[in-house]
């Protein structure tokens, strides 16, 4: 079986393409190198066969590298991407990372720098494509946490999945806290464990960090695994009465969460077309969902037009409310807060509310 990885190099400089082609072919994993002299040609090649890695210049005629990466992010989300450029500009670096590139590298000017670049590329090629966490091949996050706990270590795990960041505190082999997207404790832990892939770093333990999780790690892992299995399993057929019985407590819980957090209303708009929006605390669900759709479309167009990266959130202020629109992986949420709510805390409060919403 041919297991050679394929790398696509996109640069308008033919000499440079040839030089990097030869250098990359010498990597220990002996990847197959393809080249393209423009963004559109590169995109056409990506459509024609599966690639492992894209290395792209920024300054190119017709379509610049950021435009290429913007399309790649949408069309080939699994593809590893590297920017190799002479553009020493923080704005471009920020934008490239906002578009989800794995590596932004200035074109090497020394032999040592070149060697480092090639090592990084080899490392990127070695990462597991089928999921799992970078650094520990073919291991799920559950495995990693179990290993940390079994070794009785104290550490802070920082897990990154795209724009999402989660942190898990382990103290002397015990899980003590977790945090992501405004959620803390067990809900945050469950949410992080749902991530199938990403990167993780082991950071120095934070001595004296407040403990919010008291359940034994194995019990929590088991519960979470069961919950994940249940959500991924096909739904059993239930009668209308049974469905109503299931839905009612959830509605009550959500309304309680609204009151507890101090929000006026929440609207959840599923990404799947043809699915109805759900609203709590408002009679104008359909109307507001209509605005959400318009806002999402407008922002998607602006994101594409400007290569400004994905939409993180929208905040709005009216006479009666402060609004926060949060696009999540399966749903987009619109949260209405009272007009006198602290605007500096709204983003975090909204993320917290949304993090526990479907738990």
């Amino acid at each position, binding site marked *: 079986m041919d297991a050679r990885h394929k790398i696509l190099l996109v640069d*308008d400089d033919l000499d440079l393409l040839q030089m990097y082609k030869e250098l990359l072919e010498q990597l220990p994993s002996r990847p197959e190198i393809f080249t393209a002299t423009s963004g559109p040609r590169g995109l056409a090649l990506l459509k024609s066969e599966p690639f492992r890695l894209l290395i792209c210049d*920024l*300054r*190119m*005629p017709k379509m*610049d*590298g*950021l*435009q290429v990466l913007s399309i790649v992010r949408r069309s080939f989300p699994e593809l590893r991407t590297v920017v190799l450029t002479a*553009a020493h500009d*923080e*704005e*471009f670096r*920020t*934008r490239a990372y*906002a*578009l989800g590139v794995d590596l932004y590298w200035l074109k090497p000017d020394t032999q040592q720098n070149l060697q480092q670049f090639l090592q990084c590329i080899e490392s990127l090629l070695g990462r597991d494509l089928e999921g799992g966490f970078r650094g520990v091949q073919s291991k799920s996050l559950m495995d990693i946490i179990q290993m940390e706990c079994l070794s009785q270590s104290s550490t802070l795990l920082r897990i990154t999945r795209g*724009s999402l960041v989660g942190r898990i505190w382990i103290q002397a082999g015990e899980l003590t806290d977790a945090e992501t997207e405004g959620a803390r404790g067990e809900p945050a832990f469950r949410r992080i464990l749902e991530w199938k892939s990403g990167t993780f770093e082991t950071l120095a333990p934070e001595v004296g960090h407040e403990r919010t999780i008291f359940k034994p790690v194995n019990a929590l892992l088991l519960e979470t695994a069961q919950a994940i299995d249940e959500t991924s399993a096909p739904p059993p057929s239930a009668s209308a009465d049974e469905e109503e019985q299931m839905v009612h407590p959830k509605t009550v819980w959500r309304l309680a969460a609204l009151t507890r957090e101090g929000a006026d209303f929440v609207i959840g708009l599923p990404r799947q077309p043809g699915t109805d929006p759900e609203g709590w605390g408002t009679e*104008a669900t359909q*109307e*507001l969902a*209509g*605005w959400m759709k*318009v*806002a999402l479309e*407008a*922002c998607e*167009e*602006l*994101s594409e*037009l*400007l*290569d*400004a*990266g*994905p*939409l*993180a*959130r*929208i*905040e*709005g*202020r*009216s*006479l*009666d*409310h402060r*609004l926060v629109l949060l696009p999540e992986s399966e749903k987009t949420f619109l949260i209405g807060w009272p007009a006198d709510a602290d605007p500096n805390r709204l983003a975090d409060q909204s993320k917290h509310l949304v993090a526990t919403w479907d738990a």
Partner: protein
Amino acid sequence: MGRLSIFSKAKPTVQRLPSGSLTVDGNGRVLACTVSSACPPETLRQISNRVLQLFLKAREVQIPLAELTLQFGSLQITARELRGGAIIFLKPKA
């Protein structure tokens, strides 16, 4: 040197994110602008149209917005409603 540069090939560039502010009327016409002229007017027109569209749609659903902030990965767009028009601030994230 200046004469030679006539024959040199123009280097391709990367489109920069617009930075600055613009004031537009209700029809999306730019009345005042501090955004670099390197940013095509068509891009500014598209930004203002989308922003005005969001204000208009919000009015239609009975939540007239006075201010709107769109947070993208590398750009923040803040807009304040001005009697049907808007003042729009474009701020790339460093």
